[in-house]
């Protein structure tokens, strides 16, 4: 089943002359892990905002076409069902904090969407465990490190078990260790295979290995959709859009062109190291 269907979507923000998105079509299958990439200002955040319903509900502008989430038109949906279906985490976690402790922060969303009180504790425990913030529950959310804040932000969203989880540049503001932890949380959520996950990221190296599908947004259009190993082989296309595939993928693509390497392009250190060893040992 399609979790998301975007049909001929065009959106122009009020007081701007050019549409931020133009004629966009996109299908996302339930439980897929989708990586959205593209230059800044290309329309990535606008696209996920339209899926989340922020557009058109909380923004002024002109909309054509439609977005459906599990078959329902987002434009026609009210806020509570939208919140239950789709959760969203932003680059700057503080922008979504409202409570005085981490625990209250996680509980807040659950209460807001009317989660049965008896089940709240279980949700908090699960979300805190997945995001490794269980020992922070008593702390004020503004008095912890940037990486911890982002994990709390993710906990407070996944606690509601949205069917679709959107993360908009979740690692752009945090340090390398924090980036790895957010990536690991995404890997854990993917393993559990409950949610459809959409991540907007510049850090292609970290997220490409998790992706079932990569979406390239450029200049208001969805230009390419495909599995990462296929899409990241298009080195020239990507370079023209200032997108850098993982270095391991670039290396094997370059070795494959003159026939030095035959096979699928690796996306991870592990796969690349193994493929390289086979290649170099065979040449001994």
């Amino acid at each position: 089943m399609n979790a998301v269907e975007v049909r001929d979507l065009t959106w122009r923000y009020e007081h701007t002359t050019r549409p931020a998105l133009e004629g966009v079509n996109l299908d996302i299958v339930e439980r897929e892990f989708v990586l959205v990439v593209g230059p800044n200002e290309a329309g990535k955040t606008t696209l996920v905002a339209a899926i989340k319903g922020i557009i058109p509900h909380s923004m002024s502008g002109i909309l054509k076409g439609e977005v459906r989430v599990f078959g329902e038109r987002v434009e026609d949906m009210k806020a509570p069902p939208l919140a239950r279906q789709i959760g969203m985490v932003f680059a700057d976690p503080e922008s979504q904090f409202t409570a005085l402790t981490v625990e209250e922060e996680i509980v807040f969303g659950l209460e807001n969407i009317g989660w049965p009180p008896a089940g709240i504790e279980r949700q908090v425990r699960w979300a805190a465990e997945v995001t490794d913030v269980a020992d922070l529950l008593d702390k004020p959310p503004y008095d912890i490190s940037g990486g911890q804040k982002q994990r709390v932000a993710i906990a407070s969203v996944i606690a509601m078990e949205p069917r679709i989880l959107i993360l908009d540049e979740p690692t752009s503001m945090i340090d390398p260790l924090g980036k790895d932890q957010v990536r690991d949380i995404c890997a854990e959520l993917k393993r559990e295979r409950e949610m459809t996950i959409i991540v907007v990221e510049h850090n292609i190296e970290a997220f490409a290995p998790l992706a079932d599908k990569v979406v390239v947004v450029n200049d208001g259009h969805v230009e390419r959709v495909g599995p990462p190993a296929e899409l990241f082989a298009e080195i020239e296309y990507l370079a023209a859009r200032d997108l850098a595939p993982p270095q391991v993928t670039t290396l094997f693509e370059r070795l494959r062109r003159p026939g030095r390497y035959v096979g699928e392009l690796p996306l991870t250190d592990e796969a690349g190291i193994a493929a390289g060893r086979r290649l170099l040992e065979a040449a001994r």
Partner: protein
Amino acid sequence: MSLIEVAGLTYTYADGTQALRGVDLEVGEGEFVAFIGQNGSGKTTLSKCLAGLLRPTAGRVVVDGVDTSGKGVTKELARRIGYVFQNPDHQLFNSRVADEIAYGPRNLGLPDEERERVVQEAAGVAGVRAELFDEHPFFLTKGLRQRVAIASTLAMRPKAIIVDEPTTGQDHRQSVEIMEFLVHLWRIEGHTIVIVTHEMPIVAAYAQRVVALCQGRILLDGPTREVFAQSDALRQTFVKPPQATRLAQAWRDLGVAPDVLSVEELHDSVAGVLASRVARAAAEAAASERSPEGHGMSRGTA
């Protein structure tokens, strides 16, 4: 003589956090240095101490002969070393771009004419076009706000410029643009550049020298290539070298150069190993064909 000299530097924040625990460092004029390390390693505290934004708890920081702990040295320091914040909005406060750039020179008490000239020059080098002078910095893109911040730093004509996280939140093209600009300041304008960053591919591509901090001390200090080759020591700082370097190190035993810094260098090394093996196999085959006891590869023409 070194431009920046740091000896026995410790820094303790008011809440008791010991951010630096005895740092010795020299930076020569014309170097391009990257400070790396985990959050809390002390790299930002160190860079702020160099710029005189923080005064040492103990030890000394001397920039171009000026001790940052001295009395009334603010202006002297501002002419020697400038600091560009990660978030340009933390340092922009004027309502016109031109006033922002002129703020420092005005504080130095430069006469109007000279101030005008310095502002034009700094804006020109930083790529802030004159049409933008009347704009409010707030309405510019992040990249341009960063350039205004750099222009206002350049207007003080410091020898050294410290840039905190120049590429955070920028996409690939914007990152390359800002880094190429810093290279221009370094190579053409002759500034000493210090960047503080988490982005290892940026460090690998641009920095000549890397200073890796860990728990308030310098763990590694040397040419970029040498520092990234020490992956075991780097692991303590939670810093991973670029992916190309990691792969090369995993293939070290197979003849791949373990100290590559880019995917191009890695490709050339791997292709070189593959080619030399092909060449050696061909040479062996040819040799066995010529020798009288030749067997295996021989086609019986000897």
